C-alpha cells in the first residue's frame, strides 16, 4: 500500500471511528503506572522496563484485534516495509494520534527506526534525578511491548527497543524495531 494511502486511511479511521479521551488523563494515568512501578521495584529501572514491556505485550496481543477491525484491513502486508508504514501511519495514528517517522532501514529491510516527534505519554514528565533513571529507565517502554505483542499475533516475531529518548536529554525519541522471523503456521500436534 502506498504511504499516502496509509496516511489517508489512518486519518479517516482516527476521525470517524475512534473514541477520544482527554490527553491529560492518559498522561497522568500512564505516569502514575510508571511511577508506581518504580516505587514497587525500588527504583530497579531495568526491572521496570521489563514490566512495562510485558504490560505492553499483553495489550498488544489484544489491541491488534481492535486495530484490524477499526482499520478494516483484510489483506496481509506484502513486505516488512509496508508493515512499518501501517504501524506508523495507521496504528500510531488511530490510537495515539501521532505519526512517527520511519527511518534508518537496514539494507536487508528487516530493521527500521521509528522517530517520535511528539510523545503523548511524556508531557510534563521529568525523570527522577537520582543519577540512574536518566541512564536506565525507558519511560515509554510500554510501546515496545505493544508492537511486539501485536505483530506476534499476525505472524511476525519482532524485537523492539528504545535507543534514545528526549526525556533523557537526547535530541530525539527513537525506537528500533527488528524483524526476527515470520512465524509459520504450526500444525497442532497430531492427535493419535
Amino acid at each position, binding site marked *: 500500500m502506498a504511504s499516502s494511502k496509509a496516511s489517508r486511511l489512518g486519518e479517516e479511521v482516527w476521525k470517524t471511528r475512534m473514541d477520544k479521551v482527554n490527553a491529560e488523563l492518559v*498522561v497522568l494515568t*500512564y*505516569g502514575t503506572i510508571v*511511577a508506581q512501578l518504580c516505587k514497587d521495584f525500588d527504583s530497579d529501572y531495568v526491572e521496570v522496563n521489563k514490566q512495562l514491556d510485558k504490560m505492553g505485550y499483553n495489550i498488544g496481543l489484544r489491541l491488534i484485534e481492535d486495530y484490524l477491525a477499526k482499520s478494516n484491513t483484510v489483506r496481509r502486508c506484502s513486505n516488512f516495509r509496508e508493515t512499518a508504514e501501517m504501524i506508523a501511519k495507521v496504528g500510531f495514528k488511530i490510537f495515539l494520534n501521532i505519526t512517527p517517522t520511519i527511518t534508518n532501514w537496514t539494507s536487508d529491510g528487516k530493521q527500521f527506526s521509528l522517530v517520535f516527534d511528539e510523545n503523548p505519554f511524556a508531557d*510534563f*514528565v521529568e525523570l527522577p534525578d537520582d543519577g540512574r533513571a536518566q541512564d536506565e529507565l525507558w519511560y515509554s517502554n510500554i510501546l515496545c511491548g505493544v508492537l511486539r505483542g501485536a505483530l506476534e499475533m499476525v505472524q511476525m516475531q519482532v524485537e523492539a527497543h528504545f535507543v534514545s529518548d528526549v526525556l533523557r536529554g537526547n535530541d530525539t525519541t527513537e525506537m528500533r524495531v527488528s524483524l526476527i522471523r515470520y512465524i509459520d503456521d504450526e500444525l497442532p500436534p497430531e492427535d493419535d
Partner: protein
Amino acid sequence: MSYHFAIIGTQDNPLFEYEFGTSKQGGDGQARFSEQAHHLNQFVLHSSLDIVEEVQWTNGQLYLKVIDKFFTNYISCFITAGNVKFLLLHQPTATATAPGGGGSSTTTRSSTSVGANPTSPQTEEAIKNFFAEVYDNYVKAVMSPFYRVNMEIRSPVFRQRVAAAGRKYL
C-alpha cells in the same frame, strides 16, 4: 533591588528557594543581600506565613500583593488553589549606588526602576506577572508523575524557568 523567592508547602514546609537580583535598569540579576541576611530572609519569609493565613480568606484573589514588611524587606504573596504559598521578599537597594554599573544617572535610574517603590502599582503588576509565570511552571512541575505533594521541587528545569521569569519581569 534584591529578591528572595520561596515556595512553601501546605505543611508550612519549604519546597523551593531562589535568590536573585533585578535585571531591569542595568541590574546584573545578582542578589545583593548581606552575608547574614540569607538566613534572616528565610526567617522573615516564614514569619509572614501567619499574616498570609489571616489575609488569605479576606479576598478571593490568588495574588495577595504586599502583605508584610520588615524594615526594608517587603513580602508579596501569591497563594495557589492548593494552598501552596509563593512568597517573594523584595528589598530595594538601600544606597543610591546601583549594583554593578555605578554611572552618574544611578539615582534617577533606581527611582524609576521596578521595585524602587515596593507598593507602587507598577511593582505590584510586575510581581503579579512574575507570580503568574511561576505558577504556570509550578503546575507543570507538579504534573510530573514522579512528583509527590509537598515534596521539595528539585527540577533544574523549574529553577531555570523561575530564573527566566525573574529576569523578564523583575
